[in-house]
C-alpha cells in the first residue's frame, strides 16, 4: 500500500506541482547556493531553483515513463499473445523475433539510436519503445500459451470463435494482473533508461527532466563543489518513484497470487503462538489449549 500512496503522490506532484513552483530555468539566486528558506533544495550551478527543476522534471519524466510503459506493454501483449494464438509457424517466427530483440542489448542500441535521431524527449520515448517491448512479449507469450491450453479457451476456438474474439474475450482478461505488473515494470525501465540517456547527453538538454537535471549537475561540477543538493534530490525522486512502483508490483503480485498471502498468514499465526517452522521444515505442532480461551473458529 505504501507503493500506491507514494505513486499517487508522484502523479499529483506531476500534475499540480509545476503550478506551485517557479520557472525551473530562471536564474533566481547565486549559483551553488545550499538549501535555504528561499530555495528549499538550494540552487543549481547556474543559480536555478533545484526544487522547481525537480518538480517540473517529475512531470516530463513521469509522463514519458507512463507513455512508454503503455506502448511497450501493448506491443508486448500484441506480439506475445499473437504468437501464442498464431499457430506453430507464426509462433516460431514471432518467438524468434522476440528472442532476437531480447538478446540484442537494449540500452546500447537506444544510445546509438538516440544519437542518430534529432534530439527531443519524444525521440527518447520512441527509442525506448523500440528497444523495450521484447521482455513483455516473452512473458506474455508464455502466459497466453498456458491459458490457450486450458479447456475453456480450446472450447471457444473449437466453437469457431475468431482468434481475435478469443483474444479479447478469453485470453486478455486472464492476463490483467500480469499486464498490470508489466506496465509497472515498464515504467521503471522507461524512467531509468530515459534518465541514463539524457545524463550522457543524447537527449535535449534544454528541456527540464530528471535526466537533464543530472546532466547539468554533472556539467556544473556538483561533485567538485560539494553541491550534493543539485543531484541528490533528483536521484532520490527517481529512486522513490521506482521504489513506489516496485512496492506496487509486490502488491499486485499478492493480489494475483493468493498463495503468497497464505504463507504470510500462516507464519503470523504461528508467531502469535510462539511456534515456527524449523530448518527441517517438519510440520509444526501447536497443541490445542484445552482450558484456555477458545481460540479456534470451530468448536
Amino acid at each position: 500500500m505504501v507503493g500506491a500512496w507514494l505513486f499517487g503522490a508522484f502523479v499529483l506532484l506531476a500534475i499540480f506541482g509545476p503550478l506551485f513552483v517557479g520557472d525551473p530555468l530562471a536564474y533566481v539566486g547565486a549559483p551553488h547556493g545550499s538549501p535555504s528558506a528561499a530555495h528549499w533544495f538550494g540552487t543549481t550551478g547556474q543559480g536555478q531553483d533545484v526544487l522547481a527543476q525537480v518538480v517540473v522534471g517529475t512531470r516530463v519524466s513521469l509522463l514519458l515513463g507512463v507513455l512508454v510503459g503503455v506502448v511497450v506493454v501493448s506491443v508486448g501483449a500484441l506480439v506475445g499473445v499473437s504468437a501464442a494464438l498464431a499457430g506453430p509457424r507464426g509462433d516460431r517466427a514471432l518467438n524468434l523475433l522476440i528472442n532476437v530483440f531480447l538478446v540484442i542489448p537494449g540500452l546500447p542500441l537506444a544510445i546509438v539510436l538516440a544519437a542518430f535521431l534529432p534530439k527531443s524527449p519524444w525521440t527518447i520515448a520512441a527509442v525506448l519503445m523500440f528497444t523495450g517491448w521484447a521482455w513483455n512479449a516473452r512473458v506474455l507469450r508464455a502466459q497466453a500459451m498456458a491459458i490457450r491450453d486450458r479447456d475453456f479457451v480450446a472450447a471457444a476456438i473449437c466453437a469457431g470463435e475468431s482468434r481475435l474474439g478469443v483474444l479479447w474475450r478469453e485470453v486478455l482478461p486472464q492476463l490483467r494482473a500480469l499486464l498490470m505488473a508489466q506496465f509497472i515494470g515498464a515504467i521503471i525501465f522507461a524512467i531509468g533508461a530515459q534518465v541514463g540517456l539524457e545524463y550522457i547527453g543524447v537527449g535535449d538538454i534544454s528541456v527540464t527532466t530528471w535526466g537533464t537535471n543530472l546532466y547539468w549537475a554533472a556539467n556544473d561540477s556538483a561533485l567538485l563543489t560539494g553541491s550534493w543538493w543539485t543531484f541528490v534530490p533528483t536521484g532520490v525522486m527517481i529512486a522513490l518513484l521506482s521504489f513506489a512502483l516496485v512496492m506496487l508490483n509486490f502488491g499486485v503480485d499478492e493480489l494475483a497470487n493468493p498463495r503468497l498471502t497464505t504463507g504470510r498468514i500462516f507464519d503470523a499465526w504461528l508467531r502469535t503462538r510462539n511456534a515456527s517452522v524449523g530448518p527441517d521444515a517438519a510440520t509444526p505442532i501447536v497443541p490445542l489449549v484445552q482450558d484456555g480461551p477458545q481460540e479456534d473458529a470451530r468448536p
Partner: protein
Amino acid sequence: MPGGSHAGHQRRRGVRLVGLLIAVGWSLVAGPGCLADKPPARSGVVTVSHQQSATWVRNFNPLMPNSRWPAAAGVYEPMMVFNTAKDSWTPWLATAARWVDDLTLEVDIRDGVLFSDGTPFTAADVAFTFGLVKQHKALDQRAVWSFLASVEATSPTGVRFVFSKRYAPGFGDLMEQPIVAKHIYAKVKDPVSFADATPVGTGPFTEINAFRPQVYELGKNPHYWQPGKPMVDALRLPAFVSNDAANLALVMGEVDWSGNFIPAVDRVFVNRDPEHHGYWFAEGGGMVFLYANTARGPTQKASVRKALSHAVNRELLVEVAMYNYTSPARAHGLSETYAAWRDPSAIAGDADNWTRFDPDAAKRLLAGAAVPADWSPSIIVVSGWSDWVRAAQVVARSLQGVGVNARVETYEFGAWFERVQKGDFDLAIGWSVEGPTPYSFYKWLMSAETRKPLGETSSGNWHRFADPAASKLLEQFQVTTERAAQGELSNALQRRFVATAPAIPLFANPLWGAYNTSRIEGFPTAADPYAPLAPHKMPACLLTMTSLKPVTK
C-alpha cells in the same frame, strides 16, 4: 558433475561463499585506505593539466594546425617569446632582431644551442623551417608567406627575412614560429601527416620517457642551452576527459600545474590546502564571443546580432558562468589585455552600447529585422568545457526571453572545432584570436582577407564577416609601426566594430592557472608576474617551464 558429493562438500561450499562475502566486505570497509591514485614519490616531475582529452595521440609535429602543447613550446621553441604578463619580448633562440629597412628584418641566432640529439642548432634550421612552411601551405599556421618574400641564412648565426610588403605585425608571427631540425625534417617525405613520434628539438623537454593513451611523460633535454635548466626532470601529462576530472585530480593533489576553469576556486581548491594551493586568473585570456553566423540565417543582419547582444544579461552571465572571475564585455570587444588601446568615445550613444542588457530593445530590433517567429538557432559549445556550456545555457535562456527559441548543443572539441571552422553553425561560443596589438584581434573579426566561404576550413573569422572599411583600416595598420598612429587606427577599428557588430562579445576569458607548491615551486603569481601562469599560453609557457624547480626540503 553432480556425482556422489556429500554433505561435507556442501558445507565447504557454503564456507567458501561466506569467505567471499567477508573478503568483499573487508575490501570495502577496511582495506582500501592506500589505494588512491597518488603519483609516485619522484621529485622533479611536474604533473600538468592543460587541456581535456580522453586519450593522447602520439604526435609531436609542432607545425600541424592541431599540434598539441607542449610540442610547439616545450619540445620545440620559437625565436622569441612574447610575455603577455609583461607586454614584452624575451629573446629565445634568437638574441636580437632589427629592421634594416621597411622590408628587411635581420635576426641574430643564438650561438651554442644544441638539438636534443646533440646536433648544433644554426640559422640554417631557421631558414629550413620557413622554407618547409612555404612548401606546405597546410603547415603555415601564421600565414607568414602572405607577407614574406624570402628567408635566408646569412651566417650560422644570422637570418635575413625579406618582406613582400610592409607588414609590422609580421614580426610576432615570425618570432613565434617553432623551429624544427633540418637534419630530421629534411628527410620526412610528407611533413603534413608526419607524426614526429620521437622528436628532436631544442626545447627544455624533448625526451619521451613514456607514452600511453592515458598519460605521457616528457623528460628534459640533455643538451638544453640554458645552463642548469630545466630544473625539473620531467613533465607528466595525464589525459583528463573533462574539466571536472582534471579539477578532481588537482584538488586531490595529483596535479602540480593546471590551466583549467575551476568553479568556486577559493572554496574548492585553495581552502583545501591554503599553504600550497594557489591560482592566478589573470584577465588576459582574450574575449569570449557568441559568434553568430553572418553568412546564413537572420544573423546576417547586424541589427539581429545587436538584438541578440541586447538580450544577454552579461552581469548574470559573468556571475553564473564565470563565478565573477571576470567582467562583462563592452561593445568594442576589447578585453583588459588591450586596456591601453580602448577608446572610451567608441561607444558614444545608446545605440552603440549594444552590450547593454535591454530585452525591449532586443525585441524591437528583432521585429524590425522581420526575424521569422519559428527561428530556433542552436548554440554549439564544447562539451566538458563546463564554464562555456553554462554560459551557452545562460545565453540560450536569455534569447528565449526575447522570443528566440535558442537551444544548446554540445560537441566534443574536435567535432565542435570542425563545425566552427567550416562555418557550420547558427551560434557558437568561441574564443578570440589575440596578438600584441588589437590588430590580429580585429583582423580575425572583420577583415575581408580572413573571410572564407562556408564549408571551407578557416582558422579564424568563423562567423564569416567582412567590413570593407575595417579591412582598409587593417591594411594601414600593417604598415604602421608608430604607436600613436596605431592607436588612431585602433580607435577607428573599434568604431567599425561597434557599428557593425561582427560578433557578440560576452566576457573576457581569464587565463586559467592554478598550482600546487607541495612538490614543485617557482610558479608565476599576480605578485611575481614574470610570465603568465596558464600552461596553455604558448609560447610564454616556456618562461614558466624553465623556472619551475623541485621543492627542497
